[in-house]
């Protein structure tokens, strides 16, 4: 039987396959080029960049990372980032694994940047530098598969900030001398030391004195801020009678309270203990909170001061509530910022500095306490300050 042979022409198929292969090679080349370009871009970013997988292990670092931290890419890939680059607070305390922003972001937590609390990264050679970082999750198919962190060295910014703070401190100190001169001479004139003043002279001179007192308060506030920023604000613990201290602060501000017809009331826990604290710091806090309440409460309003202790977590809480103007809701998150003043009080009182609450927050934070508030516009505000106590038993016996 004759065998029929089909003559097939393989040439077009071969050509098609060759074309496909050529296209694939081109695509691969293009992909490689794109990858190389992406890597070049990542590598050239001036800020340190580190990418970690969902376990927190490093998958990529750029050149800036290598230069800033001192570790080469090959030495760190596959290692836990928190072990390679420990983070420290300003005081040199290592930030724990669970407290690292990166860990929080990996677990899906939304973290707000806290620019008031600088941190330091520890390099391979154990030196450290202040850094500012942005940590963002890498999300694929609605799942966090890792985190990318960019950071930069802010040594220069910190130096500039320090110089500025030192300048403020020096300028404030220099201002205090002429302010004292104005104060003392004005007091002597007002006291009639060099002759009786006519009513108009007395009125004008009182304005001079009041203006100067305002300047003294401003300079004192600026000095307190610069001391905190420079870290020269020291805490000296001593046995402190908090109830007496609060009473003293209220007495000091009695003229302003009475001038506005404000009613004050007290709710102090009975047998409130003598605490181990810094009276100077507590006074700053009480004075600022009370003067705010007085300033921003309309005539014939009410202010209530409360003192209570919580033996469980060894803290005490000072609260001050008022029936004042309140803090607008959209500005509440900025109320502790330096020089910030809410719009509704800026119109009513032109003499505030916007430093009081910043100082309160800074001293409370530095003492291991916390401060928070609730406020409703045109209804009032309540501020709470919680402080740790180390109750001194000996003093307590004496007090009771």
């Amino acid at each position, binding site marked *: 039987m004759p065998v029929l042979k089909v003559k097939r022409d393989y040439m077009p198929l071969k050509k098609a396959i060759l074309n496909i292969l050529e296209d694939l090679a081109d695509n691969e080349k293009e992909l490689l080029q794109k990858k190389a370009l992406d890597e070049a871009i990542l590598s050239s970013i001036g800020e340190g960049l580190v990418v970690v997988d969902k376990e927190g292990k490093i998958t990529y670092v750029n050149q800036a990372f290598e230069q800033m931290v001192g570790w080469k890419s090959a030495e760190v890939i596959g290692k836990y980032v928190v072990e390679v680059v420990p983070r420290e607070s300003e005081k040199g305390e290592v930030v724990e694994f669970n407290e690292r922003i990166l860990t929080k972001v990996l677990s899906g937590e939304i973290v707000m940047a806290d620019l008031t609390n600088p941190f330091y990264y520890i390099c391979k050679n154990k030196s450290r530098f202040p850094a500012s970082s942005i940590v963002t999750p890498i999300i694929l198919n609605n799942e966090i598969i890792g985190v990318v962190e960019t950071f930069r060295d802010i040594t220069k910014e910190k130096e500039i900030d320090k110089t500025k703070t030192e300048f403020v401190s020096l300028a404030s100190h220099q201002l205090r*001398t002429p302010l*004292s001169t104005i104060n003392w001479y004005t007091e002597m004139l007002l006291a009639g030391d060099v002759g009786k003043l006519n009513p108009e002279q007395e009125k004008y001179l009182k304005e001079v004195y009041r203006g100067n007192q305002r300047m003294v308060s401003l300079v004192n506030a600026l000095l307190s801020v610069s001391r905190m920023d*420079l870290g020269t604000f020291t805490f000296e613990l001593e046995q402190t009678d908090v109830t007496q201290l609060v009473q003293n602060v209220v007495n000091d501000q009695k003229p302003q309270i009475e001038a506005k017809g404000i009613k004050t009331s007290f709710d102090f826990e009975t047998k409130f203990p003598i605490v181990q604290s810094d009276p100077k710091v507590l006074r700053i806090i009480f004075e600022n909170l009370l003067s705010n309440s007085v300033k921003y409460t309309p005539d014939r309003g009410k202010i209530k001061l409360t003192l209570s202790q919580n033996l469980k977590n060894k803290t005490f809480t000072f609260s001050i509530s008022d029936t004042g103007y309140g803090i607008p809701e959209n500005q509440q998150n900025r109320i502790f910022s330096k020089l910030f003043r809410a719009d509704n009080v800026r119109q009513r009182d032109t003499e505030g500095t916007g430093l009081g609450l910043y100082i309160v927050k800074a001293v409370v934070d530095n003492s291991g306490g916390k401060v928070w508030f609730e406020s409703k516009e045109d209804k009032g505000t309540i501020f709470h300050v919680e402080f740790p106590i180390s109750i001194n038993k000996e003093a307590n016996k004496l007090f009771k």
Partner: protein
Amino acid sequence: MNTIPVRHIILIIEDEVSLRNALRDKFSREGFFVISANDGETGLSTALKEQPHVILLDVVMPKMDGISMLKKLRLENEWGKNVPVILLTNLGADDEKVMKEIKEDKSAYYLVKSDWPINDLIAKIREILS
């Protein structure tokens, strides 16, 4: 028999002319016998020579600062060891340093010039002298 009231001698050591004059005028009017010096070195020699009842001492001064002068004064003799000294500061950032220095010194006091009305200063000194 009437006793003659003691006229207290006060030594003011302050380099700022305007402040020194304000203090001198006020204390004279209040019946004190005022002597003054404008630096720590002159202040120390004047103090040892005149032995005032009380000393008002500025902290930041040329030649010898207030803290150094106070330390030297306390080592000089029995009178120097006990004479009341009120340190006048405007230091701000270094107030704590001054407080630490005088913490153990029972006859030393400190006050911030711009925070103290002059009449309160007089009252404080009368209280110390009584």
